């Protein structure tokens, strides 16, 4: 995703009216793609998709099945489940990143999509942060204290690490929310660490 391109949201929903409504709400801020069932959703899914809104109860492939295929393909997208009933905590254990219970209001939809995008932003910041931390550790493990004290590279690196750490704590409100916490940890286990 380049700076100028809007994030991509894929709506997988079998009721056309409902799907159209979501599209209307979102198309001002995002590029919206629509699929009427799970199979079509999987076809339209590629690495340009940032967020998937996935209806849980659909004819054909269920939302749960679509989710597991998405995870198998190790795509970096975030998946919000849309459900008719309020789920319990176990939704997180099932591997969704968020859920929305019908009927959904426009504001709710926007909040959820932007939160999921922020989580992706957090993941990528955390990845960049790690790269710096590793670099610093390598210097620390291979140079003497005197060498480090004289090294401009090391001083710069220390500063960058501190800045990045600050930036991370400003993203997602520094993981205050339980859902953000669990979803971020799931991202770590999902093989995104390359």
């Amino acid at each position, binding site marked *: 995703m380049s700076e100028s391109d809007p994030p991509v949201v894929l709506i997988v929903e079998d009721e056309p009216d409902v799907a159209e409504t979501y599209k209307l709400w979102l198309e001002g801020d995002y590029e919206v793609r629509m699929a009427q069932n799970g199979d079509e959703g999987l076809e339209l899914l590629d690495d340009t998709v940032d967020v998937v809104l996935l209806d849980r109860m659909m004819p054909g492939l269920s939302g749960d099945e679509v989710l597991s295929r998405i995870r198998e393909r190790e795509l970096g997208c975030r998946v919000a489940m849309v459900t008719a009933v309020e789920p319990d905590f176990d939704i997180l254990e099932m591997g969704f990143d968020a859920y929305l219970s019908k009927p959904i209001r426009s504001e709710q939809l926007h909040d959820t999509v932007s939160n999921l995008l922020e989580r992706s932003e957090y993941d990528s910041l955390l990845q960049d942060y790690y790269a710096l931390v590793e670099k610093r*550790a390598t210097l620390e493990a291979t140079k003497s204290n005197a060498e480090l004290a004289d090294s401009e590279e090391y001083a710069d690196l220390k500063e960058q690490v501190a800045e990045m750490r600050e930036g991370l704590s400003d993203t997602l409100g520094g993981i205050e929310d339980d859902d953000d916490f669990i979803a971020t940890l799931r991202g770590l286990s999902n093989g995104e660490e390359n």
Partner: protein
Amino acid sequence: MAKRTEVMEDMYDLSSVLDFDALSEVRPGSSILISGPAMTGKQRLAYDILADGARDGDGTVVVTTGDDATDVVAEFRERVPELEESQLGVVDCRREGGSDNSSVDGAYVHQVSSPGDLTGIGIGITKTLEGLHNSGRDRGRLALVSLSTMLTYTDKKTVFKFCHVLSSRLDAADYIGVFTIDSGAHDQQTIQVIKQAFDGLIEVRDADGGGRESRVLGFSGEPTDWKRI
């Protein structure tokens, strides 16, 4: 990640467990790494820090990769006789083959299938913190014993990120965290990476002529001198 500057916050005093000035006012949200060779009492030190807080009513959370949850509960019951119902939660990462919640002798226990199941550990911690919060405990101490075991299940990058994210979560809860690592079990670079996920470091080692000694780094600029413990 302790970064707040309000002066009104109630600091954690760990100096009664380990006598260093640098540990007398530890800011809520701080995460501390306890590092040292095998058999130098790292886990005991972590448990001491938790037990000391528990006596003052702090919430207590133990994430264990080695001890059985039942043993952890029994140990804390013995060390802190005044331990109340729902003051202690244990996340036991050794439950091979499945996850489960239960209650052991008045403590909340969450079972996780493996020390490599970070999501499961996160859910266990979340549920435990929620339980403690609901019973009115707004501060507390979490120990994770040990990162060395986790590092045998997953790589240092993942463990580093896990520590960073967990520290952020503890910061939001105004808890402090203590994490142990066996400094002899990993290469120098791994130790240097993991260290950076923490606000402070307590090093322990065997002292010349028997006994142990310790020093504290990271809280107030310069490392302290080694001191016998």
